[in-house]
């Protein structure tokens, strides 16, 4: 069981949404759920900071939302399925979010996907234990 959670940590560029992340990101993710209502989306757009103040998340989490820093949101307990609601509210596609998270321009990211995606070779393992 301890081994269960630790095994994932060898995978590069990946945060598994386990109990630790879920507890950390609870209110951040519940804020994202609120964006499933049009009224809430409008209220968020009308004043992002004020809207975020309604949710008992950390100031770091609020800033990451304001910055649309998805990697930071994930590090702070956000889960991508929840965070996608922010992207949807902004009117961005998932590929736009992916370009933000991978730090490459959207065109370049799309071209990588059309060319077959990010290869698995070299992306399996941080330690090199898994080939």
């Amino acid at each position, binding site marked *: 069981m301890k081994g269960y959670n630790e095994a994932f940590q060898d995978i590069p560029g990946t945060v598994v949404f386990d109990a630790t992340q879920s507890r950390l990101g609870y209110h951040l*993710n519940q804020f994202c759920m609120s*964006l499933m209502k049009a009224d809430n989306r409008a209220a968020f757009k009308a004043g992002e900071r004020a809207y975020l103040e309604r949710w008992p998340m950390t100031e770091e989490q609020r800033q990451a939302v304001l910055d649309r820093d998805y990697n930071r949101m994930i590090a702070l307990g956000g889960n991508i399925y929840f965070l*996608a609601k922010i992207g949807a509210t902004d009117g961005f596609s998932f*590929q736009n979010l992916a370009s933000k998270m991978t730090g490459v321009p959207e065109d370049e990211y799309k071209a990588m996907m059309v060319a077959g*995606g*990010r290869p*698995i070779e070299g992306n399996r393992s941080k330690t090199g234990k898994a080939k």
Partner: protein
Amino acid sequence: MARITAGLTTSHIPAVGAAIDLGKTGEPYWKPVFAGYEFSKRWIAEHMPDVVVLVYNDHASAFSLEMIPTFAIGCAESFQPADEGWGPRPVPVVQGHPELAWHIAQSTILDEFDMTIVNRMDVDHGLTVPLSLLFGQPAAWPCKVIPLAVNVVQYPPPTGNRCWNLGRAISKAVASFDRDLKVMVWGTGGMSHQLQGPRAGLINRDFDTRFLDGLTKDPEALAKIPHVEYVREAGSEGIELVMWLIMRGALERAAREVHRFYHVPASNTAVGHIILENPPR
């Protein structure tokens, strides 16, 4: 008695739903994706089921972090398309089959699966995109649908083995339902994709091909794959593939592959689609 005639798997990518809803299916980027479903649309029109048991994962739409069921079976009369942040998809309301759904719930609970029974639930792209792919854009869906939501968001999801066994229990439940119904089981999600972080965009054609091959030939071996291997080899959202094992477990061992389609990319994802038919009775 009711019987399971066939099963299929398909990705349920939201961008595919958007392409359909916005009339972009003829664009060069999307054309090859939808071409892979041309056979399937004809096939299903000829083999129209009365009910589809549609295995999917909710993407933080019906279930927030307040309550996270491992397996949730929808027993309601109908299910509304969810608003995932850009308004609900313009698709028909999903009509359930409460009698069969409750029967499956009862049968699987007595077979010691710890189901959550759900009587009110909106359904997101995970459920509606497969319907659009197979049925296009009708005014009403041509069959009833029983949503079966599997947690793959919060770790740990159910093991592959547990999913496989749930499929078997569903097969037993359907076979004991005292009405003459043609039932299909669909497994959705996958194949390789990662939607988060610096590794987003990962695709593993080899893994996907082995998975598609194994689905017909050696599903027991697939049922042994640990979660870490899915995440490592197929990307963090590749874990959705455990749901395909529920479909496979519900079919007979001798089921025959009648169609296969694999395409990269649709948005961030490798599209995988396979149709399996149970042997004729």
